[in-house]
């Protein structure tokens, strides 16, 4: 594909305009899920399991229904019983039966917070009364929370029809291990034999929540004629449409989903929880039903990503050539199969050009909420282990950690463990930029350490629709099907304005409902600027071709004799005729006389999303008395292909890095002995706050992706991959000890410092 212009020729791409939806978002006018209103709406709420694992003996809703003002009560009996069927509409594979059972338990509750019934009432207080009046009888079952305990013989079994996939012959006894999966290239045994130095370590991580600040929210109406309207905040209104249609057994065309503004998702809003229930309640009550989760519900019943155990073994020769890399990974899936074990396995060593790799993984269910995608799903977990081990390898070899990585760096032509050969990638450029950055050579203070780590993410393309419509006054509407989660409206408009040669301010961004634009896959996988941007770019290019034809018609010359330059049609040369340039607005004014409205809608299934690589440098200071770790300096270098709006690219990198810092130092689900979550609130589940952090310096490296007209690579997910190891390696530098468990919270750090001080004889 040919690039549109050299970087120096671009007028709009690479600048930093104010986003089109900005004013609404700084004045409080933007409408998020909980702000949306449908006339006559009533309040919907969910009754949730107080047990980690229990059989539902009976549910008596009669007392709730008898309360005046309670309009509907539903249980799983009111929803279709969905057969097992794998689908791919969200950000990962999804089994519709599991999705249905996750929205509403049928025979068993599998985690604390699992929905068992829902009500719709005239007021909030009446809905609460109705929930309290529902009588659910449970037979409490033994539960299991920890991943290795769930794999052990004799563990409580969550699903008696779940047999481990990936084993031959097919097992005959049910297991919590949903899947065993392995990727191999070369011969690791031979590789380890050739090694002079071997590092073999075991790492663990705790489940962490995406912790978007906006709780899930929707309002839904089921009309008497079967037509449905849903207004919801999500990462994909087409995803909501698909899932609701499937889970409720209705036609896709009968559902219109309006995307409310979304208050953060990070992968956690790529599936449904409330929407099918709101529609079912609406059908039963005859009223639109609004449902908004509490923060506690968000923690107990949505997200998080897996906690895991990762055992890693890396061998290298004395001069730093890695001869073999091996890992065994056990990922929690939560109550239903579907942890991001595959990407975890694929990403751990994808930064390196290795001949011998063997990665083995297990997808394991336990009595926790079903995991949802979280920013580069799976990769941060495996990379935390791999990149800490690589750092210890560098230490053992006496090599600079960047030099060791450079010596083994993946480049164009390197084959990955999952079979793909890297195309044009920027890992070496990222390493060079990190090493040249002043941060890498700056002096450190007392009790401080410096850590370095890198990360990889595939990025995806996929199905997207974009459209460009020229209005009669020469302004342009730029339409797309991708919910804007962090500035993508600006990027879409910038790409369209660049192609059309007009001012950014002449374009308006529109994200219509599911009935008004072509299908578009979720905002996830770092795909929007790449794939939806490609659709918008192609639509703008089609409009330019049309504008040239219109000019040719006005001038009565051949379309081939017209060029598009700086937003206007000009004769291609002296032979074409001596016409004055026709600006876009002049052509738009005459649209009716030259063939009618000017516009183009393009749907693509974009392939060739270029993978992204990042390298993070972290300086940490540890208070030896308290174990408190302070990040004192942080630099994140990333190959972004080409930054359309550099501020929002930097923002992705800064935000991802800080989510990773939270994962590294603070965040975890804490369970008590009953299998109930003890910290379901922002006071006790502590995400980073402003005073925890320094400025995060984002360094943009641009190695254009040859498959995108502007060279775009996805940027949103890579930055959460390196931070945990960067922080862990910094702590090792500061304290001269290796932490193996996440989070590296003050109590854990303090205990590790104390243990290190303890004389061996005292053990």
């Amino acid at each position, binding site marked *: 594909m040919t690039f549109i212009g050299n970087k120096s020729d671009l007028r709009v791409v690479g600048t*930093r305009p104010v986003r089109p939806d900005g004013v609404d978002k*700084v*004045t409080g006018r933007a409408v998020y899920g909980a702000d949306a209103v449908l006339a006559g709406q009533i309040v919907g709420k969910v009754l949730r399991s107080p047990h980690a694992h229990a059989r539902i003996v009976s549910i008596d809703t009669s007392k709730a229904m008898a309360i005046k003002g309670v309009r509907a009560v539903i249980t799983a009996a009111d929803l279709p019983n969905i057969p097992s069927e794998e689908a791919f509409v969200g950000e990962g594979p999804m089994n519709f039966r599991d999705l249905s059972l996750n929205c509403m338990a049928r025979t068993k509750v599998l985690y604390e917070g699992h929905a068992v019934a829902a009500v719709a009432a005239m007021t909030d207080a009446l809905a609460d009364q109705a929930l309290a009046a529902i009588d659910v009888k449970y037979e409490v079952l033994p539960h299991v929370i920890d991943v290795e305990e769930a794999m052990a013989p004799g563990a409580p079994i969550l699903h008696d029809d779940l047999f481990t996939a990936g084993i031959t012959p097919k097992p005959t006894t049910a297991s919590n291990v949903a899947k065993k999966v392995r990727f191999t290239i070369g011969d690791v045994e031979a590789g380890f034999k050739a090694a002079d130095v071997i590092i073999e370590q075991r790492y663990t991580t705790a489940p962490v929540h995406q912790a978007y*600040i906006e709780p899930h929210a929707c309002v839904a109406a089921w009309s008497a004629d079967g037509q449905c309207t849903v207004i919801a905040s999500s990462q994909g209104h087409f995803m909501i449409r698909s899932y609701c249609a499937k889970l409720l057994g209705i036609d896709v065309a009968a559902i219109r989903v309006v995307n409310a503004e979304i208050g953060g998702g990070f992968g956690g809003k790529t599936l449904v929880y409330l929407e099918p229930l709101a529609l079912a309640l609406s059908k039963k009550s005859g009223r639109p039903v609004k449902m908004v989760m509490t923060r506690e519900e968000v923690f107990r019943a949505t997200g998080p990503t897996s906690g895991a155990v990762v055992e890693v073994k890396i061998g290298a020769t004395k001069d730093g050539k890695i001869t073999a890399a091996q890992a065994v990974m056990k990922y929690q899936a939560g109550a239903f199969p579907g942890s991001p074990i595959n990407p975890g396995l694929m990403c751990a060593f994808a930064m390196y050009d290795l001949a011998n790799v063997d990665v083995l993984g297990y997808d394991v269910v336990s009595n926790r909420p079903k995991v949802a995608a979280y920013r580069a799903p799976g990769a941060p977990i495996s990379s935390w282990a791999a990149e800490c081990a690589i750092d210890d390898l560098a230490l053992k070899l006496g090599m600079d950690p960047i030099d060791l990585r450079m010596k083994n760096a993946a480049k164009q032509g390197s084959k990955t463990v999952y079979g793909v050969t890297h195309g044009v990638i920027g890992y070496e450029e990222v390493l060079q930029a990190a090493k040249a950055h002043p941060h890498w050579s700056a002096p450190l203070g007392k009790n401080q350490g410096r850590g370095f780590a890198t990360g990889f993410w595939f990025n995806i393309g996929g199905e997207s629709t974009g459209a460009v419509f020229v209005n009669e006054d020469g302004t342009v509407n730029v339409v797309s099907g991708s919910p804007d989660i962090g500035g993508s409206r600006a990027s879409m408009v910038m790409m369209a304005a660049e192609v059309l040669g007009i001012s950014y301010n002449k374009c308006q961004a529109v994200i219509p409902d599911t009935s008004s634009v072509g299908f578009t896959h979720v905002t996830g996988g770092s795909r929007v600027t790449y794939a939806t941007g490609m659709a918008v770019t192609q639509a703008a290019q089609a409009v330019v071709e049309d504008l040239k034809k219109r000019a040719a018609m006005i001038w009565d010359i051949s379309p081939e004799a017209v060029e598009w330059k700086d937003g206007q049609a000009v004769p291609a040369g002296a032979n074409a005729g001596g016409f004055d340039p026709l600006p876009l607005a002049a052509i738009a004014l005459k649209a009716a006389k030259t063939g009618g409205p000017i516009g183009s809608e393009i749907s693509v299934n974009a392939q060739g999303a270029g993978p992204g690589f990042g390298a993070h440098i972290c300086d940490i200071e540890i208070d030896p008395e308290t174990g408190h770790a302070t990040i004192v300096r942080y630099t994140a270098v990333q190959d972004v292909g080409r930054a359309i709006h550099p501020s929002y690219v930097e923002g992705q990198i800064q935000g991802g890095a800080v989510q990773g810092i939270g994962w590294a130092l603070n965040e975890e689900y804490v369970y008590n002995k009953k299998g109930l979550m003890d910290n379901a609130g*922002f006071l006790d589940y502590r995400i*980073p*706050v402003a*005073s925890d952090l320094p400025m995060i310096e984002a360094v943009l490296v641009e190695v254009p992706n040859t498959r995108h007209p502007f060279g775009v690579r996805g940027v949103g997910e890579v930055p959460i991959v390196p931070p945990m190891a960067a922080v862990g390696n910094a702590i090792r530098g500061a304290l001269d000890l290796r932490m193996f468990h996440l989070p590296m919270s003050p109590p854990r750090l303090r205990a590790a410092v104390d243990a290190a001080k303890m004389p061996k004889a005292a053990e």
Partner: protein
Amino acid sequence: MSKIHVSTTVNGEAAEFLAEPQESLLDALRNTLNLTGSKEGCGSGDCGACSVIIDGRLVCSCLVLAVEAGGMAITTIEGIAEGEKLHPIQQKFLENAALQCGFCTPGFIVATKALLDVNPDPTETEIRYWLAGNLCRCTGYDKIVRAVQDAAAEMRGS
């Protein structure tokens, strides 16, 4: 339970409404007065998305009872701009790309207003500690802190 009549001032205008005794000010603002710019992220005073200024004090409106607001002057995100003219804080948040999803933004802007009202020239550390009660999960706070610094500089200059 009967509702209680509340007379108050919201964004400089007299406002009257009826509230349940247990209703939060946030719910009254959002559901009764249709001022949905203040957001509920937690309902427990931990995220700051519902920040408002009451008689010069920055508070989480989810932790204030609606009936307590009687006779007080409340400033919400809807009252920060002067008509069509954005407040410098709002303008600097836009120019610095200090928002991604935008959900926490109203709370941050209200909290910043309260900061700059009492401290027109805050250090980076003062900004970070003042805003520690406002959670943002998208930005890593870098561009928010810069926007606040820029807004403070502009307001001092004007």
